[in-house]
């Protein structure tokens, strides 16, 4: 009897060991299969061999230095190092003139600088943002006087679309196409009535889609088109013929994130913003759990107060109210005219 007790205990221990071993083997097989099949983030496959240049993510540091130099010069400070190309100096003089109050002359100089370097994203963005703020100021002024007629000066009326259209026709580059597409989004941000918003978004998506057919890995275009789809109201009638698939936004933004991950190099703010926006797209698509995971990734990528506050607001949304809360949040974001959604400086800040 005494001998059988240790024997039984030994058998039990052996059985436990076998059980643990079998469990470990099963787990190892499952881990390998899971990594092979789904990977970490279940993103669309980034094109093989895609380069930073193809993705539009090359030289972000240099772009950042150029943008800072432009700002310094426009504010009357010296910049070190200061680019000496005439496009840059002209644009810096233009920006300085706009800030001094000589808006017409300033815009003309900015336009002149951009004409000399049509593919320069920093100059293009500076021009577009300057025009955006000028038009906004005029519209605000009109609203303040309760007038029904928008008194935007004649020289500003057709900016920036006319200039960018001409520029793109003369220099059909991906950067000019991108600026033109974003100018349409600027239009819909400034004029939020559906009859302006819908065609402006359609026009922007058309331009970006053409661009993406030629350059399928161009991240700024993917991000721009994704944002367009994301900001379309989900419960209003949208031109049926142009209606996007429910996952259109998350596909574009997911691919942008996948390409960004493959190449690396974007600032934490850029990566976190992409993750947050992808979360928003998934929330709109009706995948709340997945959306929360992306918001969490955004919060862990860039622990900056404004971004953390944005993710925490989202964490508080219940599944059943998510779409309404998301649309309200996007409305607030769209109305933040001090930091328009289309400001490309997020790429190199």
């Amino acid at each position, binding site marked *: 009897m005494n001998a059988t007790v240790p024997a039984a205990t030994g058998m039990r221990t052996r059985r436990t060991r076998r059980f643990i071993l079998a469990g470990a083997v*099963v787990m190892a097989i499952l881990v390998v299969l899971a990594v092979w099949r*789904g990977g970490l983030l279940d993103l669309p496959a980034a094109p093989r061999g895609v380069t930073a240049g193809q993705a539009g993510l090359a030289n972000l540091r240099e772009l950042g230095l150029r943008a800072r130099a432009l700002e310094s010069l426009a504010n009357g400070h010296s910049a070190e190092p200061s680019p000496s190309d005439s496009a840059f100096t002209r644009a810096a003089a233009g920006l300085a003139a706009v800030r001094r109050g000589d808006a017409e002359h300033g815009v003309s100089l900015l336009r002149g600088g951009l004409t000399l370097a049509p593919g320069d994203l920093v100059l293009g963005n500076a021009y577009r943002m300057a025009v955006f703020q000028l038009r906004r100021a005029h519209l605000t002024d009109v609203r303040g006087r309760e007038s029904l007629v928008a008194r935007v000066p004649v020289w500003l009326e057709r900016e920036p679309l006319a200039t960018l259209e001409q520029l793109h026709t003369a220099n059909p580059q991906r950067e000019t196409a991108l600026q033109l597409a974003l100018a349409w989004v600027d239009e819909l941000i400034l004029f939020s009535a559906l009859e302006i918003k819908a065609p402006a978004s359609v026009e922007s998506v058309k331009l970006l889609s053409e661009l993406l057919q030629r350059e399928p890995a161009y991240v700024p275009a993917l991000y721009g088109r994704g944002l367009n789809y994301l900001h379309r109201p989900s419960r209003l009638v949208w031109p049926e013929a142009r209606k996007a698939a429910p996952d259109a936004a998350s596909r574009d933004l997911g691919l942008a994130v996948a390409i960004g991950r493959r190449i690396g190099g974007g600032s934490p703010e850029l990566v976190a913003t992409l993750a947050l926006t992808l979360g928003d797209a998934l929330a709109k698509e009706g995948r709340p759990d997945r959306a929360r995971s992306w918001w969490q*990734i955004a919060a*862990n990528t860039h622990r900056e107060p404004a971004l953390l506050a944005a993710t925490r607001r989202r964490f*508080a949304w219940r599944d059943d109210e998510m779409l309404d809360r998301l649309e309200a949040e996007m409305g607030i974001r769209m109305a933040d005219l001090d930091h328009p959604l289309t400001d490309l400086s997020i790429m190199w800040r």
Partner: protein
Amino acid sequence: MSERQLKLVVPKLRDPRLMLALGLTTWTVLGQTLLYFNRDLLQIGVALASACLLDMLLAFVFHRQVLVPISAYISGLSLGILIASNDWRVYMLASAWCVASKYLLRSSDRHFFNPSNFGIVAAVVLLRNVATVAPGSQWGGEWRVALLILGLGLLMMRRVNRLDLVLAWLGGYVAMSMLRVALGQGGLVFALGPMTGAEFALFTFSMIPDPKTSPPTAGARIVWGLAIAVLDGVLRFLGIRYSMFYALFALCAVLPLFRLVAAARGVHEPDPWRVAVRVLRRNSEPVR
């Protein structure tokens, strides 16, 4: 027939529920102050008060007991944290269902549903679109906090002798997550991500280890933890929200069936868990 005497029921200091209650209270205080728990104190208060008062009332009516409602405290706090609704009455109803299940749904002389789980499932099913389970990412999206909570939770489980159950559930959850990803359902981050949320932490460290509604033996606890994980994994694969709560609910609902099988074999045992263990072991030895 003699009148039953009033009995004062006070938990002993070694009662594992005290440790659970302490842990849960600490979580709630930290969640409301340092972390981003995002709950309404009034709602937590309503859930807590409703559960405790009703538990005391029903204990008095059914058992002539004057109760220190430690179980109801744990359940009420869990409900206050886990349920999300704009209507405070939801918290009262969920607490009422939770406590009532203890007194009204019994197998022999023991309740077999985890009360807070019953309250949550009843609320999300019967009050659809009014009550939901609070979103999982309540720790402010900070994975280090989630890791700390996991560590502290496991230490607490060791103290309350439910580490085997919780480890089986966690291991089963990870295995089922891997299986879901291998079958094409998303990436690893999304499959394992819920483990960092408050919903998962509270389910793991406050709901399933409830000493009154979890198995008495180590082997049975491991099987129980794995069974919850497997059913949860299947429900998640089918895209069913609140899968953890449904899985625990469904498995608890099966417990009384063991009594039927046991009765056919001549096994008589008041505790539904011990009945289940004896039926599964196919023996008639009482479970120690």
